Structure formats: C-alpha cells, structure tokens
C-alpha cells in the first residue's frame, strides 16, 4: 500500500528552487485588496523531488495497462498506443503553440487539423468534421445540438421532441438526449439482437427528432436493415445519429455516411489509438452530412490550398462547445496514427479486429452461452447464465481473469443480456495473446464447474482484494483533509 502524498514529506522538505522574482517587490497590501490575501497556505505536502518520483513510480506499478496487460474490453477498443504518437505530440512546434497566436505563426498546426478533418470525413463518408469536442460524450452533445438547430431552422423545433434510442444503447446516448432537452423513447431489439424495425415504425412520427444508434450495435452485430431504418427515419422527417464507439469494426469496409447517418461522433481514444491515460483525455470529433454543415461549431479550419485560417463565418452555427480549438495534443496523435496506418492499413486493422473477435467467439462458444450467435463484428457478448447456475457469476469470472493477467472485459452491459460479458480484442493483439485469453476463459469455465469458490473469491493475486463499494458510497471520503 502506497502512502498518500499528504503522508509523505515534512515541513520544509520541499527542495525545488524557483527563479528569483527579479524585480523590486511591492507589499501585497499595496497591490491587492486586503480581504483578498490568503490567510493560511493550502495544506499541501512539502516533499523532496526524489520522494515525489518514488511515490508516482510505485503507484504506477499498481496499475494494469495496455502496455502490460491485454484488455478485451468491449466497446472501449483498447488497442496499442503507438509511442511515435507521444513523440510527435511533444514536438516543440506543436506543444508550445498558444491558441491565440496569429495564424501566420500556426500554419503547420492548421494544416494538420485540415488534413485530419479531410481524412476523418472520408473515413466516415461525411461532408465535414468539427474537431472541437473534448470526448465522445461531448461530441454526442454537439451532434444532438446540431440536430436540434436543424429542426428549429425548419420551424419544427417545438414539435420534434423525441429521440429514439435502442434498448441496447450505451448510457451516454439517453443522457445526452436528456441534457439537450429531449424526451427519450426506447426501441426494442428483436430476438436476433437487432433493432426491431416494427417497433421503430410504431414510434416514428412528426414528433421524432432523431434516432441514436451505433452500427455494429453494442452486441457487436451489424444492423443489416440499416438502409431501411435510415429510410424510415428520414421519411418521418427525423435524423440519424451514429455513436462512433464501434467504428473499429468497419473502417474502410463501410461508412456511416453511406448507411444514411446524418451526424456522428468518433472516439479518437478508442479507434485512433490515442492513449486512455487512466480515463482521459480523449477527443470526440463530430462528422456531419451536408444538411448539417451550416450548424457546425465555430471556428472551422479553411484553406485555399496554400494558406490556412480559422473561420467564424457560420451564421447558423450552434456556437462553441468549448474554449479554443479542441484537444490538439490528442488530434496530433490521431493524425500520426492515421498517416502511419494509411488507407490500406486502416482497412486491415478493422478486418483483423473482426477476425480476432470471431476467433475468440468460435473458441469459447462451446463453454459459454452466446445469446446472439450470428457472425459478430469486432466484439461479441457472452452470457454468464450457465456459469451462474453452476456457482459463479459474470462479475466473479471477470475478476478471476485478473489472476491470469487479463483486465476484466466489460460486464453487465448491454442491459439486454443477462450476466453480460462483452469481449473486444482489437486489431493489435497477437495470436499468442488471443490464445492465452481463450485458455484462461476455458480454465475459468472448468473452475466454475469444479471449484467455484476459487472464482467467487477472485482476484487472489491483485494488489488489493475486493473493494467495499458500499462503504465508499455510504460514507464518502473524497478528500484527505476534509471528511
């Protein structure tokens, strides 16, 4: 167990010099209102640099990470984070650019943004892309606002009040729709795990603003009737929003724009290999079809082929969704990945992602229930019902995987599968790793049959045992000095 920062150090032990002020100092009381001077310094610890480094290095050793462990996390696309991405983002000419510098000094950066926009637009079959949103959910919110602006521009803002969301959808979809002021209507999935088109028909009408979907869906299944669905929604005057979380399945094979989607976001920290960093930063660019282009956030990057500039000339824009231009450092990493993989590599990446998922499924379907057993895309969902009846549930099996050195897959999502476990291997894993995972899963299935306690009490080898989440929520201790 590693001490907290506040348990390290001692008064006066701080040993990092700062430069001298270098000018004649005036008394603080002369410069600032008396009541605004800090009375007591913050209770920050005073630690020498060596002990700071030891602290963070030791903490890092308590983590799993892609660089140390396989993460078959469904809907997260935990692919390798290339180190060249890190090096390029740190180039002086990128890292030390101030967002308010004149564009004559930032042409290289603007060019990168423009080229990235063109590549992402082409990849998704859309007309334009805003690189402003800071994360997928942020991009979703931006997209929904554009949908709303579109309907308002046609005088239908007050009547189109409903957003349709499949029951298999990720939680951000209804949360985003509600944040934008819409009522959320749930559409059922059919027995094949796909959107029930009849249920959709019943709910479509003049009050439909949009449907939010992903394809492949959260079960990893391709929505075969997507062209029909798009036609129905457009006929009813609604728009289609695509949640780009599952883009890794289809790059270079099929494009959301061609399927009929009007707006979508991408998760660069999933599909485009930018690192998760323990929870962020990400980036969630929003791509739109022609009819939504007038509503894009400003500024956009424009060019005449030689020079690049920022344009605020978009009268129907929904406005800004954040200060400055976007998570530029993340965008540099995504750009680096795209020009590395290239058009040919990106196609192969998606294909390998799909191949890997189907390989694992084929290797496990005799031991685990796979409720929707048609060909999957880049991920698939198993149900732990069989094992639950034998004595250990999905959560326990997932924790047992930790003892084998694997991060647990996504569990209990999507909600429409009991004891769900969603597995997404991604494209960057070797066959050796995949076989190791398959072997571990099969061993766990054996253990559940023969000695379920081993699974129920897992993990056994992690730095800590099972966490008391009830205590954490009942008596929150969220800050060291302020209980």
């Amino acid at each position, binding site marked *: 167990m590693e001490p907290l920062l506040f348990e390290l150090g001692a008064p006066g032990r701080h040993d990092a010099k700062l430069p001298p002020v270098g000018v004649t100092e005036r008394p603080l009381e002369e410069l600032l209102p008396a009541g605004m001077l800090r009375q007591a310094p913050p209770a920050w610890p005073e630690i020498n640099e060596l002990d700071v480094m030891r602290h963070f290095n030791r903490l890092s050793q308590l983590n799993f990470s892609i660089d140390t462990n396989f993460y078959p996390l469904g809907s997260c696309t935990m692919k390798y984070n290339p180190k060249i991405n890190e090096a390029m983002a740190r180039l002086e000419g990128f890292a030390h650019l101030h967002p308010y510098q004149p564009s004559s000094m930032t042409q290289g950066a603007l060019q990168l943004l423009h080229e990235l926009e063109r590549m992402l637009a082409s990849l998704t079959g859309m007309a334009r892309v805003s690189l402003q949103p800071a994360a997928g959910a942020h991009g979703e919110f931006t997209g929904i606002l554009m949908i709303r602006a579109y309907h308002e521009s046609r005088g239908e803002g007050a009547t189109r009040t409903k957003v349709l969301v499949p029951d298999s959808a990720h939680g951000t979809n209804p949360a985003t729709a509600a944040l934008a002021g819409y009522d959320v209507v749930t559409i059922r999935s059919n027995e094949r795990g796909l959107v029930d088109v009849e249920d959709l028909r019943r709910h479509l009408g003049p009050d439909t603003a949009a449907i939010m979907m992903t394809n492949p869906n959260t079960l990893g299944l391709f929505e075969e009737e997507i062209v029909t669905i798009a036609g129905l929604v457009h006929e009813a005057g609604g728009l289609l929003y695509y949640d780009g979380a599952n883009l890794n399945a289809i790059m270079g094979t099929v494009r959301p724009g061609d399927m009929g989607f009007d707006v979508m976001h991408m998760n660069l920290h999933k599909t485009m290999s930018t690192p998760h960093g323990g929870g962020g930063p990400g980036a969630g660019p929003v791509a739109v079809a022609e009819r939504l282009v007038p509503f894009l956030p400003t500024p956009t990057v424009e060019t005449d082929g030689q020079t690049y500039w920022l344009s605020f000339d978009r009268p129907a824009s929904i406005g800004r969704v954040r200060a400055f231009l976007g998570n530029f450092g993340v965008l540099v990493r995504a750009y680096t990945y795209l020009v590395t993989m290239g058009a040919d590599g990106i196609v192969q990446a998606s294909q390998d992602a799909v191949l890997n998922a189907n390989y694992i499924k084929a290797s496990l379907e005799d031991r685990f229930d796979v409720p929707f057993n048609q060909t999957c895309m880049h991920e698939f969902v198993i149900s732990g019902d069989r094992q639950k009846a034998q004595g250990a549930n999905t959560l326990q099996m997932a924790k047992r995987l930790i003892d084998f050195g694997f991060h647990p897959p996504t569990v209990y999502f999507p909600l429409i599968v009991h004891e769900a476990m969603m597995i997404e291997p991604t494209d960057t894993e070797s066959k050796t790793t995949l076989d190791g995972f398959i072997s571990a899963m099969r061993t766990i299935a054996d253990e559940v049959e023969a000695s379920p306690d081993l699974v129920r009490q897992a993990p056994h080898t992690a730095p800590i045992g099972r966490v008391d989440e*009830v205590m954490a*929520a009942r008596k929150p201790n969220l800050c060291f000095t302020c209980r």
Partner: protein
Amino acid sequence: MLPTDCLYTQTHEYLRVQDGSAVVGITTHATEQLGDVVFVELPAVGRVLQKGESFGVVESVKAVSDLYAPVGGTVVAVNEALEGQPGLVNEDSFGEGWIIRLQPFTEADLAACLSPEAYAALIGG
C-alpha cells in the same frame, strides 16, 4: 413472506395505513434487486404528491430507482434516520426502513393499489 397489513404497487412500493396516515417504503423484493442501499433522496416535508408521482430516489452502488407515491397526499414526515443509515431500507424494509408518511389520502387511491396476493403474483411467488 409479504406483510398482509400492507398494500403494494407495480413499482415495488408498499404502504401501511397507520394512525390515519400512509407509511410508505419499498419492499424486500426491491431491495434485493438493488443491493445495499447507499443513499435515499427524500422529498421535503409539506410537499404535495399525486398518486404515481415520483418523490425521491433510492441509490445502491450499481443502480438507482425512482420512488413513486402509491397514493396522493401531503408529505407529513420523512425518515431522517435514513440519512446516516441508508442500510435500514435493506435491513428492515417494512419497519425501520420506512421512507415517508403521506396524509390525507383517498379511498379511491387506496383501492387502486395491489393486494398482498396480487403483488405476490407480480413478483412470482
């Protein structure tokens, strides 16, 4: 074993008429689904509720459930003990884990609730 001195709702609330007011909580079936309750969001005393109106929230670590008024009425009391001990909802759902008291209520509203037998059938046993 469902208390027979209570009436029930489709959304797993119970009510017991006591001293002219309706004591409302959630059933053991509900708390078993939810898991350990970590927080209960209570309405303000004095708030007027319609039958079926959402008046608060019960949170566990992994799920959250809205609470719906089984009958209309004014909130005359809330169980303040739940602030420090939300687990009472699990430990003694029908007793110390009560959530609010409503008063007055109509016979019509009461009649529209589920009998113990009907609720038992709903939850399958």
